[in-house]
């Protein structure tokens, strides 16, 4: 009974939303026009090249279904994404948390105003709280403060390290339309950099976990 009530409430909330959603008003002719406008009206600037507007299968699926695709498609693509994760050849997941903290702070990279030789940062603080000291953090993603403690009940040891490595490498292997970028999969960060970030989240001495 409770369940139906919630479901109905949710449905009304959706209808009451003043801006109609995409799914449900599918229109092939219009969709084709949108693509042709997008292809025509952008141009290369600096390192941001026109080919960036071409969607891969994950981007296309998440756009089409407003980040809520049918479960079968979601699971199929998640599995594909997971299969493509390149795990560290040496079997080690933890790097240097100090380098990781620097990377997490850096929000530069990949925009047309970034220099071609600029090393992209992790942008982590843009979206997540990580250490107690840094007060300028975003809330688009959840707080990762005391990450080890947060996770100790569910996972630990190498299994947890692997989970975090995989998540930074390609968060979409775990949750297809999540808003977090695929740092390894799309070549933003290197294997060594991802290891440094894993250490930031899991080393007991890092500012994420200490105290």
């Amino acid at each position: 009974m409770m369940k139906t009530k919630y479901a109905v409430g949710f449905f009304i909330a959706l209808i009451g939303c003043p801006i109609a959603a995409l799914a449900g008003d599918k229109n092939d002719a219009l969709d084709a026009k949108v693509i042709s406008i997008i292809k025509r009206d952008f141009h290369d600037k600096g390192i941001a090249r026109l080919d960036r507007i071409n969607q891969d299968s994950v981007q296309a699926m998440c756009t089409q279904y407003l980040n809520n695709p049918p479960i079968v498609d979601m699971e199929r693509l998640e599995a594909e994404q997971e299969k493509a994760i390149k795990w560290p050849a040496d079997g080690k997941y933890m790097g240097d948390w100090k380098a990781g903290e620097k990377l997490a702070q850096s929000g530069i990279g990949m925009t047309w105003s970034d220099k071609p030789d600029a090393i992209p940062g992790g942008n982590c603080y843009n979206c997540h709280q990580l250490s107690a000291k840094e007060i300028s953090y975003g809330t688009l993603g959840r707080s990762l403060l005391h990450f080890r403690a947060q996770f100790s009940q569910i996972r630990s040891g190498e299994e947890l390290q692997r989970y975090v490595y995989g998540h930074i490498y390609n968060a979409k292997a775990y949750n297809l339309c999540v808003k977090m970028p695929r740092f390894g999969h799309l070549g933003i960060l290197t294997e060594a950099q991802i290891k440094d970030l894993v250490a930031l989240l899991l080393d007991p001495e890092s500012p994420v976990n200490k105290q």
Partner: protein
Amino acid sequence: MNTHIIKSLFFVLLFSIYGSVVQAASDATDEIAKYREMISDGNPADFDEMRGENLWKKPSGPKKVSMQKCDLGKGSGIVKGAYAELPKFFPDTDRVQDLESRLVSCMTTLQGIPEKEITTKPFGGDNYKPDIESYVAYVVGQSKGVKMNVSLNHPKEKEAYEIGKRIFFYRAGPYDFACATCHTQDKIRIRMQDLPNFNKAKDSQAAYVSWPAYRVSQGLFRSFQWRLNDCFRQQRFPEPQYVSELTIDLAMFMARNANDAIYAGPGLKR
């Protein structure tokens, strides 16, 4: 008012926020509100509005004609309230146009200025202030206090809105971002910048009616086309062509969603 003083005042406040540890989020917003109040007797955009009004009346371009006969949708020469109805369909050009695209039309047809001259460097910098930005400041100022009333009656207006909506949700690029990635949740922020939720009428209205705006951190007046351009940059997309259909349709989506709000620009931003 001296913009340098305004700018440094702003940074002093900002640093005092960063110094004051924790509580961060709401504090930053409060401080900016406080700052707005402190200088509310004079938005530096006032100067851009004045400059724009003077330019508007001055004969210029190869044809030595002023902008006074420009038709912004309410008839030739009518500026008052025009911005609150844009973008809209214009029969003479047979397309939907936003303010900046319409200004380009007037500058090319009335004044004889080649389009490329206007559209290759449309945004100001430290020692560079394109006329079109001053026109924008003047025109939007003439809609202050007017209720937003953007029509979807013409089929091309309806289509522009639908295309704009799809562009808003289009995910791509090295970070998989869409506008929707950052702008469809309540009360979230990137670092310290609050992100309006454009799925909500209230947020859409508040954001739209406060643009174009004077950006204190840059010491410059910025147009709505600039705002869209900079968000595409943050989205890690390539650059959208100035006043292209892509940008006009996106502006239509945002403007229509702001209907019934009272237009309040030019605004004042961090």
